[in-house]
């Protein structure tokens, strides 16, 4: 299929002998924002982590069946872990701020990937530009991150990975850590990021999923129930379970 970028083929994930994802068949196009919703323990975060193999960090026993193709390469068999995590960047829900200045935090990724120091400023400029935040941060690079607001800490955690020029952003639901005005301010920037990246985001609030996504996926008990364009998903769901979920039955 044209523009096919990420493809799950009969993908199942078993963590510590518990099945978390069952026979996932899914195709995601480039430059989309896929918002993933579902009740708790549906496997939303596990699906996200499957794309940069970070489930392995949190579980002793990880069993994978099927395949995940990114740009037609099966990441489960052929991967350089460091490169994979650079290209499929993960942004946790709570921004993890390393103790130091804004500059220390922004350059953490480029330091890890041995980018020569003379290019750091360019990389950081590029990432902050993508977030429309260069003007704000350019005079605050020596400021301690502890002094930043939660929204600005969130921007730093995005900028840190964008500086590494990823293809995919895997985003946990950040909306719980910022207030509504900060969310509204950041959501516009976030939506614009799809011009450069393919984004998968876990959402715990259907309204946020509807606002941010171009496509939405419903997971229940590790199974894909429905995946569709966001407007269609919320206005005219195809599956009965989706209707029930949206009407609040699963809560």
């Amino acid at each position, binding site marked *: 299929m044209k523009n096919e970028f990420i493809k799950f083929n009969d993908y199942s994930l078993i963590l510590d002998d518990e099945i978390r994802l069952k026979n996932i068949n899914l195709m995601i196009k480039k430059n989309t924002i896929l918002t993933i919703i579902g009740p708790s323990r549906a496997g939303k975060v596990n699906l996200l982590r499957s794309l940069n193999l970070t489930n*392995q960090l949190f579980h002793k026993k990880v069993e994978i069946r099927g395949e995940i193709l990114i740009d037609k390469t099966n990441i489960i068999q052929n991967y350089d872990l*460091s490169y994979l995590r650079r290209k499929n*960047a993960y942004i946790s829900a709570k921004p993890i701020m390393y103790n*130091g200045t804004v500059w220390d935090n922004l350059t*953490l990724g480029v*330091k890890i990937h041995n980018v020569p120091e003379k290019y750091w400023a360019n990389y950081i400029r590029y990432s902050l530009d993508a977030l429309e935040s260069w003007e704000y941060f350019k005079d605050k690079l020596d400021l301690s991150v502890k002094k930043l607001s939660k929204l600005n800490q969130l921007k730093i955690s995005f900028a*840190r990975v964008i500086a590494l020029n990823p293809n995919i952003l895997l985003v946990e639901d950040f909306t719980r850590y910022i207030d509504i005005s900060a969310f509204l301010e950041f959501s516009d920037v976030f939506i614009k990021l799809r011009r450069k990246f393919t984004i998968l985001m876990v959402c715990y609030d259907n309204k946020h999923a509807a606002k941010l996504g171009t496509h939405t996926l419903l997971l229940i008990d590790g199974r894909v129930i429905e995946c569709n364009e966001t407007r269609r998903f919320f206005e005219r769901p195809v599956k009965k379970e989706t209707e029930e979920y949206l009407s609040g039955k699963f809560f």
Partner: protein
Amino acid sequence: MIRMSKIFNSLDSLFMSLKYLFYLLSIMGMIILIYYSKFTYDVFNRFVINLVIISIVSMLALLCGYTIFKLILEYSNSIKKAFDILIKLSSLPLLFTFIGICLFSYKVLFLYWNNCLFYEISIFLSLIISTLFSSLHLLLIIPKNKEQEYMILVDYLGGKVKDYFKIIAVSNLKTNLYIYILSFIKYILVNILPLYLIIQIGILYFDFKPVIISYYYPYYLIDQMIKQNYNIGADVFAYMVILFFVNYFINYYNRELQYEK
């Protein structure tokens, strides 16, 4: 699990109280010695030599610990997992403590190995390896909360273990260097020194029968050891190390159980 934790908590408090009691007694002993001018150059000399040995062994252990640490982490894909493995590995002092106790008991019970080189080397090796792993553990248990987050962050960014060390651990070590040093000194001061002092002073000057420490070890073994009156310094030293790790282990499991809760 909670019940176990309570038992360990009580044991921990008991050991802590005992340590402070020993502290007090050792200070009193010191004052008495100085008062009666019995603190001779010879005693001081032996005391300093043993302290120097402890320091050298500790430094060696730290160095070896760091090298092993680096090697193991280098071959692991997940920093967090590697740390988990290392924390398990660093619990090995129990094994070496056990070996130490076996050798010690064998010597005292069967009195075979008087001035035997093999025995001295075994005890010394057991001491080095125990100290090595416990130093490793000391370094590992300090980074518990924030550092766990940093490890995950470096993992998420596609970093390797060397990156964690290069960028975060070194910087943290610099910032918290005094905490590491103080913790290490505290371990030696609180665990080894008071007991060492009181027993050494007691044995040398007051014909001391260590009933007070029979809580830790069957009295008759200690009594036997003293009656033999050979190379007491090395035995007492080994004994101190064993005590140190028994106490250390109770602390360790207590803490682990608290985390599991």
